[in-house]
């Protein structure tokens, strides 16, 4: 107890240097835990992009690629899936529901996705949450479009605004003879749906009626009334989301689709594909964590350096302690205790900085990146980091403390010659 009182008093006596060391540790701890928080948050929101879907079906490529273009709208499909194959799969008894997805057109920087109304019933995110319409309603007419929250915000759209879909991606050719009407705006989800314009499968067919091979057939413009009369059954889909009757059939359905003889198809389990994708993306995240870990180490070494230089100033102090009857290992434990206390204050301050930062940044990060960082009691992992910093602080301080221990046997008591 005496040692604790002495250590605290000694820290207060050197409030400025100790304060600086504490601040350095605090910032490093806040950085490390912040990175950890973003890492776990990003991983969770990544895994939450799609749920409730048992299989994603597309042309045979790789599971990660299929996941990227069908769910994240990154990259393009190698091939489409013919409507016949789609119907074949849909007709299987183990398929509970199937939702087509047709990609390939864009509106400004956003992708346009053709799908069926069932998409709104079956696409789930964040552990089973449904898509919700913030304004208006889902499409009911051929030329209705539902837009994601980011589309509405970025382009400043509201219900009933006209919207023109461009052919291809980043193309100047626009399907300007058939403007769409915005019928609904979805609530923010933090998934790629936010950056998507959703129209019906038939609408995708309709806008391509007068187009062939990337260009409009010259002089031909089918009036909208005539298009409405046409048979707009899609010829192909880009991918399909499938739900099975029972999880027991997941693997047999997957095998049946992968061995489908008429067309090379690929069915992937979204959860497994997400894990594969995360294994690739996760490398960067580990690097980030390693860098912030080094910052903590640097702060602790900084503390050791200040302790070393303080030893010189405190030679008299140590000598007086010794003269008063303090044993050398009391000097040692006092120095280690000081360091442990500094590290504890630092880690505590770091933790408070982290939570302060979270309170301020949480809504900003959520709206800007769709990344939800939960504010909750520190996890066991964070507590372990906290404890680790305190223990590491104590261990690091052993180096200067042992030096003080050795010196204090005689140093400062003898007049220097």
């Amino acid at each position, binding site marked *: 107890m005496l040692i604790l009182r002495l250590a605290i008093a000694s820290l207060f006596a050197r409030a400025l240097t100790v304060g600086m060391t504490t601040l350095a540790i605090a910032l490093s701890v806040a950085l490390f835990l912040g990175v950890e928080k973003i890492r776990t948050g990003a991983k969770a929101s990544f895994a939450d992009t799609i749920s409730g879907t*048992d299989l994603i079906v597309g042309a045979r490529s790789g599971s990660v690629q299929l996941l990227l273009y069908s769910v994240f709208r990154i990259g393009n499909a190698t091939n489409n899936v013919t409507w016949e194959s789609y119907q074949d799969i849909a007709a299987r008894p183990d398929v509970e529901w199937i939702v087509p997805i047709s990609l390939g057109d864009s509106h400004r920087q956003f992708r346009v996705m053709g799908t069926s109304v069932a998409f709104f019933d079956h696409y789930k995110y964040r552990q089973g949450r449904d898509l919700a319409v913030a304004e208006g309603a889902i499409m009911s007419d051929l030329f209705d479009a539902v837009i994601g929250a980011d589309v509405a915000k970025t382009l400043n759209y509201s219900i009933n605004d006209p919207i023109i879909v461009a052919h291809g991606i980043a193309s100047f050719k626009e399907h300007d003879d058939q403007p769409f009407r915005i019928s609904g705006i979805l609530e923010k989800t933090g998934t790629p749906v936010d950056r998507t314009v959703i129209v019906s499968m038939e609408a995708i067919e309709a806008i391509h009626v007068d187009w062939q091979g990337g260009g409009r057939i010259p002089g031909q413009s089918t009036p909208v009334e005539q298009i409405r009369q046409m048979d707009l059954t899609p010829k192909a889909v880009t991918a399909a989301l499938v739900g099975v009757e029972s999880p*027991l*059939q*997941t*693997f047999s359905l997957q095998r049946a689709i992968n*061995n489908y*003889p008429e067309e090379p198809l690929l069915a992937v389990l979204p*959860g497994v594909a997400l894990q594969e994708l995360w294994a690739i993306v996760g490398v960067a995240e580990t690097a980030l964590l390693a860098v912030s870990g080094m910052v903590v180490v640097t702060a602790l070494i900084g503390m050791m350096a200040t302790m070393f230089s303080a030893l010189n100033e405190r030679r008299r102090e140590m000598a007086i302690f010794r003269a008063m009857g303090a044993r050398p290992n009391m000097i040692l434990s006092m120095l280690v205790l000081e360091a442990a206390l500094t590290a504890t204050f630092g880690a505590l301050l770091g933790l408070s900085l982290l939570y302060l930062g979270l309170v301020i940044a949480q809504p900003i990060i959520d709206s800007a990146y769709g990344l939800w960082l939960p504010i909750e009691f520190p996890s066991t992992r964070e507590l372990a980091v906290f404890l680790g910093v305190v223990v590491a602080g104590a261990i690091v301080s052993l180096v200067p403390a042992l030096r003080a221990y050795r010196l204090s046997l005689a140093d400062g008591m003898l007049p220097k010659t």
Partner: protein
Amino acid sequence: MKRTLAISTILLAGPLLAEDTRQLDAHEHGVGELNIAIDGTTLAMELHAPGADIVGFEYKAKSEEDRKAIDSGVATLARPLELFVFPAAAECNVTQASAALESEDDHHDHDHGHDHEHHDEHAEHEEHAEETTHSEFHAEYNLNCSDPSAISEITFAYFEAFPNARELEIQIASASGAQSFEVTREQPTLDLRGMF
């Protein structure tokens, strides 16, 4: 041990397009696949393991000894609870178990034994079948577990039963989605806490 990545020349042909469809399955010695699906109290598992893992060879059984090895491999595979150990609290019982050896030749016989004659390359290929063939053991199990939530882990005695097996790639599908895992000879336990 060097990993041998080989591709089996299993021809899976549909009934109509037997001549046009060629597909190759991946085949890696030492690595088996186990799929587990769970719905309520029912657990369905399917195991695909290279012949090299189970009996140590993949050629067509030549001697009495080879045939015995295959029979004992199939017999061991047909007792899933001795290979995959579930916690006692889950009270898992086997309702159905089957295991069989499938080789390249079997595929020909089962699937399209009738079109042997019109593939000249095939005839040639089959002459070399003894050197190039790959075989796989397939097993399917149905289990009934009174308390699936008690399945906190699965211990793989599989690796003790089959000294040539090094790794199992596991996929689990349940109502909450699918996940993949890997168990190895060095770490033969699968931690499933919070999964069901």
